């Protein structure tokens, strides 16, 4: 068997071959005999000629009805612009036509913001346009929304009736939710968001709770897991760490220690998965290797309220700040999509070009993390908190695949072993 990477685990070596999905736990002598011959991946640096959209993203507005203490979006200051109904309908029509041309069955529409339901009328128009076109053309509509959950009961019923997946940002009990995720005017959001979560958890849509973990909440991840499962019946809990912004520090919010987060995540996953709830850390190892962390570089098209088509849902100022231009086209109600082919090619190349990830065993599972905030070209990311926690979580996931649960416990209890695993400079199997 050939392996690409060797990861030190408490005096043993975890060998991993991401492209053949092989793992083994061996001693030092076996590691020395292991052969590093996994072939390089088929590395398509060019985008396919024809657009094959993963999904259509619609940003009905960048406005938001909340003012979260860590939000970096300009939306909480409010731009006011909502997407025209005609543009929303045209985007959906373009997607339906593209699906038919490419013999795809599913009309996959995702809503992002700001808070997308701040422009609820645009969401109604897009959803019903898509359902009408799907019914007329034998397609299956699929809707997903990322929301803060601060919505009316009418809106919550609509979401429950028509959406398949709801990603609800919810930071936990009142002491975290009300501190982190405040309303504009500084009011508390917990009661309304918890009511929304309960209503959606009781409905047919898959409820995914998206939890931002801070230095103050990291120790509570296992407790929160029990509480989430008991109170809201989510299908998925997705854990993220706080990304520091100019606001978050002023609010006294800081990212968790990466080792604490990794330990908290593994403990939470055990609790939640015992209760049938999928537990996600977005950079964790998947059943298949991947070259991009997110929909960027997979032809996801995200239409903004003014008709720009971007490869990423983040606001323009965030990617421009990282030296990236992610606008890949324009959508108009008259002429549909005008794609900027060269810009699309650049996005494909950007997501595949990750020199900072060379030699890391997570290269083909986390794929460098967020292309805008974490692994934009030229950044030295090797010992970033994201990389440290991702290596620990990935190694634990690989060990758990081999049912090495007691070794995972032993590893997580040994800070020195965790540091050795997370900080070793090179993991290539053929290096001593």
């Amino acid at each position, binding site marked *: 068997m050939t392996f690409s990477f060797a990861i030190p685990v408490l005096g043993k070596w975890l060998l991993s071959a991401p492209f053949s999905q092989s793992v083994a736990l061996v001693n030092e002598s076996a590691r020395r005999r292991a052969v590093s011959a996994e072939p390089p991946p088929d590395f398509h640096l060019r985008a396919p000629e024809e657009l094959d959209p993963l999904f259509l993203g619609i940003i009905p507005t960048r406005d938001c009805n909340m003012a979260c203490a860590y939000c970096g979006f300009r939306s909480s200051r409010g731009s006011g612009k909502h997407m025209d*109904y*005609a543009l*929303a*309908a045209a985007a959906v*029509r373009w997607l339906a036509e593209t699906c038919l041309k490419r013999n795809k069955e599913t009309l996959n529409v995702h809503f992002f913001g700001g808070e997308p339901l701040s422009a609820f*009328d645009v969401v*109604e*128009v897009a959803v*019903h*346009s898509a*359902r*009408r076109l*799907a*019914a*007329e053309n034998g397609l*299956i*509509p699929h809707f997903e929304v990322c929301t803060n959950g601060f919505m009316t009961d*009418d809106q919550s*019923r*609509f979401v429950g*009736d*028509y959406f398949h997946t709801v990603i609800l940002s919810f930071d936990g009990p009142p002491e975290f939710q009300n501190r982190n995720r405040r309303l504009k005017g500084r009011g508390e959001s917990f009661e309304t968001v918890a009511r929304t979560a309960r209503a959606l958890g009781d409905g047919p849509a898959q409820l995914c709770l998206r939890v931002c973990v801070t230095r103050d909440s990291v120790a509570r991840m296992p407790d929160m897991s029990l509480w989430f499962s008991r109170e809201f019946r989510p299908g998925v809990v997705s854990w993220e760490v706080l990304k520091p912004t100019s606001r978050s520090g002023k609010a006294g919010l800081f990212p968790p220690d990466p080792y604490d987060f990794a330990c908290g995540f593994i403990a939470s996953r055990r609790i939640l998965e015992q209760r049938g709830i999928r537990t996600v850390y977005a950079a964790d190892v998947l059943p298949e290797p991947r070259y991009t962390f997110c929909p960027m570089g997979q032809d996801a098209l995200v239409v903004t309220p003014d008709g720009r088509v971007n490869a990423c849902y983040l606001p323009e100022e965030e990617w421009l700040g990282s030296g990236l231009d992610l606008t890949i086209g324009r959508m108009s109600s008259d002429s549909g999509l005008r794609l900027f082919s060269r810009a699309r090619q650049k996005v494909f190349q950007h997501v595949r070009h990750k020199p900072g990830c060379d030699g890391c065993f997570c290269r083909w599972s986390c794929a460098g993390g967020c292309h805008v905030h974490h692994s934009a070209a030229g950044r030295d990311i090797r010992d970033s908190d994201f990389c440290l926690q991702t290596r620990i979580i990935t190694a634990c996931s690989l060990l758990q695949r081999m049912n090495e649960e007691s070794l995972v416990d032993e590893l997580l209890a040994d800070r020195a072993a965790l540091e050795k695993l997370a900080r070793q400079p090179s993991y290539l199997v053929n290096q001593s």
Partner: protein
Amino acid sequence: MRKDRKPNRKGTAVDFAPHIGWIVEEESVRVFQAKKGELLKLKYPEAAVWDLISRYSQEADIIPKLAAICELNAASARTLLRSCLRSWLQAEVLLKAADRG
């Protein structure tokens, strides 16, 4: 199934008949009434009209949305809305507001 929805439709020309509920399905909306069972299966574009009238009472709020959803001009959207309302009044799933007692 949603039972006994109480949409906020005060002061409008029509209201839902008592004990009306509905289920949203992939391509349609099924409308039920307690004891009578299924009354209507609404496909598009009627399914969109049903959803919109459950939340909005004024034509001015409904017509622009319906026009965009169905790719119609405003006059045709108004005709579609009124035709649906007439037909559902006839089927007694809607009542004229004055009939509510």
